[in-house]
């Protein structure tokens, strides 16, 4: 059922613009700031308009999984602070927080940007685990893309702490960095009525019927996709959304 807000939004979209005066494929101002936390091994603050997300990377040494004795791993967790939106509550992570974390995780994992073998210290005994924490400071829409962009920036900013074979010395940072050979950028395309748009505000997210997150690397290769929202998408929609996501990913990549 359409409510007054959706009707009003559609009136704008028919006229080819959005409620804040942007075009359908226009982003708000994006800023990426690296190295914002002294205690994290790598960190980044991403602002997209009024949306603000902090991402921190902690490097942990632990035993590898028994079936992959020579590979390190990636762990992503998202926390939606109640401070960042009236809709968020304290307590265990909800569906939205888990989805953000998993979509970000999958985008990076499936792109093959990380060389897991390079994270091995001693096969079967010690490997590096990249633990990523996403914290929302303000939710004014598009947390998904902001988190994904922040995570990428934070991993790039990461410097390994010193490890002597037994314990990690977090006080001493080495010059060793995590090697990333590809940069997977996630762009979420939202569908309101028959209109497709990127970088939604909170209102637009609420009015949207479906969304598709597309992670892609430099050469336009797709790494991961995630569909959300209640309405189904047909083949044509998906094709259009993927094209739009790839186009926009190229724009966003410049901000890294």
């Amino acid at each position, binding site marked *: 059922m359409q409510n*007054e807000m959706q009707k009003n939004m559609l009136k*704008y979209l028919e006229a080819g613009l959005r409620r*804040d005066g942007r075009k359908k494929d226009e982003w708000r101002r994006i800023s990426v700031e690296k190295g914002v936390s002294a205690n994290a091994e790598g960190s980044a603050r991403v602002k997209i308009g009024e949306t603000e997300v902090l991402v921190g990377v902690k490097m942990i040494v632990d035993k590898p999984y028994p079936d992959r004795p020579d590979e390190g791993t990636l762990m992503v967790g998202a926390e939606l602070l109640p401070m960042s939106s009236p809709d968020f509550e304290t307590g265990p992570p909800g569906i939205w927080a888990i989805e953000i974390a998993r979509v970000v995780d999958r985008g990076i994992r499936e792109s093959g940007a990380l060389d897991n073998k390079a994270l091995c210290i001693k096969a079967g005994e010690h490997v590096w685990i990249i633990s990523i924490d996403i914290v929302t400071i303000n939710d004014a829409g598009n947390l998904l893309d902001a988190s994904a962009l922040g995570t990428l920036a934070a991993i790039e900013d990461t410097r390994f702490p010193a490890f002597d074979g037994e314990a990690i010395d977090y006080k001493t940072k080495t010059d060793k960095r995590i090697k990333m050979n590809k940069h997977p950028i996630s762009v979420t395309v939202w569908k309101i009525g028959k209109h497709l748009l990127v970088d939604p505000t909170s209102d637009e997210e609420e009015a949207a019927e479906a969304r598709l997150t597309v992670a892609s690397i430099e050469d336009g290769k797709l790494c991961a996709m995630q569909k959300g929202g209640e309405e189904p998408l047909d083949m044509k929609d998906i094709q259009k959304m993927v094209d739009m996501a790839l186009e926009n990913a190229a724009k966003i990549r410049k901000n890294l």
Partner: protein
Amino acid sequence: MAKLLVKERQVVVPGEELAEGMEYLPGFGAYRMDDHVRAKRLGIVNISGRAIKIIPLSGRYNPKTDDAIIGKVIDITLNGWRIDTNSAYTSLLSLKDGTTEYVQKGADLTRYYKIGDYVAVTIVNVTSQKLIDVSAKGPGLGKLSEGRIVRVNASKVPRIIGKGGSMISLIKEATNCRIMVGQNGIIWISGEPKKESIAAQAIGLIEEKAHLSGLTDEISRFLKEKVK
């Protein structure tokens, strides 16, 4: 030995000393502690004679009788609608104040207002227990449809309306939109999409720069530039 410690139109924070000595009197948003007048709220100083008052820059809306506000229907009761007033208290719009039509016993009240609808109402009465009665009878009141809602801080509403409605009519004339400003900081705009968006941006600009002077000129420049 009275001494004024602040200037007219200065921004002060709660607890800040405004004046020394018993000559000056605390007005709205100010209080006396020992022989000092101090600020109770974040706001701009306004000195008139011996009284010092604060024009607040922040804070939630406090319902007052005769205020025209815009509320959101949050519940339908047996004899009316419960309206969210964007303050700490909700209000009740009773059947007799909600519509001029005759309502049959047991009629479906969603015919008039549904949950989630925005309604322009006036506050009829506020009791000491903060039970608020509102009415939708009157010119320009009633259900708001087709437009969009913009929310601002309620303390910025006087700036948005301007002296004698000067600021709001400036926006109305430039954008050709119908605009209704609720005292509780909820604003309804309706017009052509492009113009509506400009009106919303202008209101955002006023909210952002509410504490500065010469705002009317700046807004009229902004509107002239946007509306070509």
